[in-house]
């Protein structure tokens, strides 16, 4: 009975450590995919094997291990390199037009199409 309990605990511990490992790995990959390579600027560091991309991957890994959250890691890179380093930039005063323009074009386009086909007129 005792051995069974011990084995059960070992199994649980192993399962837990495995899942925490894979969580860290997933987070690392997610962050690496969202950071721009400094040398080959069209690639993320996840895809790049340049020296600086490899160093950045190590920095990300180190920061995750030290307990930093995803947001904290992004803000570290933002302070060093600016918003440009992120592939998924946040909504701010400099880029609001880029975020809003497609929605605006979609809405205006929609209204034009609807008026052209007379759908709006019929309704009104």
């Amino acid at each position, binding site marked *: 009975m005792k051995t069974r309990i011990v084995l059960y605990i070992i199994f649980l511990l192993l399962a837990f450590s495995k899942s925490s490992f894979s969580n860290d790995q997933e987070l690392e990959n997610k962050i690496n995919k969202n950071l721009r390579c*400094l*040398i080959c*600027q069209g690639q993320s560091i996840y895809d790049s094997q340049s*020296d*600086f991309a*490899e*160093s*950045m991957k*190590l*920095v990300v890994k*180190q920061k995750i291990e030290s307990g930093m959250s995803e947001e904290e890691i992004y803000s570290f890179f933002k*302070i*060093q*390199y*600016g918003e*440009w380093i992120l592939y998924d930039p946040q909504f701010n005063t400099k880029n609001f037009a880029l975020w809003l323009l497609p929605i605006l074009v979609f809405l205006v386009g929609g209204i034009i199409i609807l008026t052209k086909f007379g759908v709006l007129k019929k309704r009104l």
Partner: protein
Amino acid sequence: MKNRYYKYSIVIFLIFTFFIFYYGLKEKNFYTPEDISIKKFPNLILNDLYTNSETSFDDILVGNNYYLVNIWASWCLPCREEHPYLVQLKKNSPIKIIGINYKDKRDNALKFLDEYENPYLTILTDNNGIASIEIGAYGVPESLILNKEKKIIKKIIGPIDRKKFNEIKELINK
């Protein structure tokens, strides 16, 4: 009337698009930071190239008005081009130059210094490249000029050439 209005709006739209592309494509596509002056140089602890002993930047950056932190490697060709300027700065200006040897083999680095002269006050090694990312470097070579408060007052991405050399001299002689 409606048709003319339609034509005008297309022409305006095309002109607008043309100018956006014209200015957008004229701009440099290599990003350089604008507000680096507010950043303080982090206190990194790295190993000395010669003695291999752990050395912190806080121990080195003491007592001088200006420091130039230069990231270099023996395998980097532009580093050879900028090296004579570093030697000149060492000889003809009060600035102290600290080297960060990026992902290099120790023997090759020493050979490089033997061949081209050593302008550095201290050389620290960055074998895995982490320190260079911590200070926000973009590549090799790169130079940062720090004032006595350890604030980065100038960042030079790429090799130092005649123009940048003069800019450094002007900055430290202010």
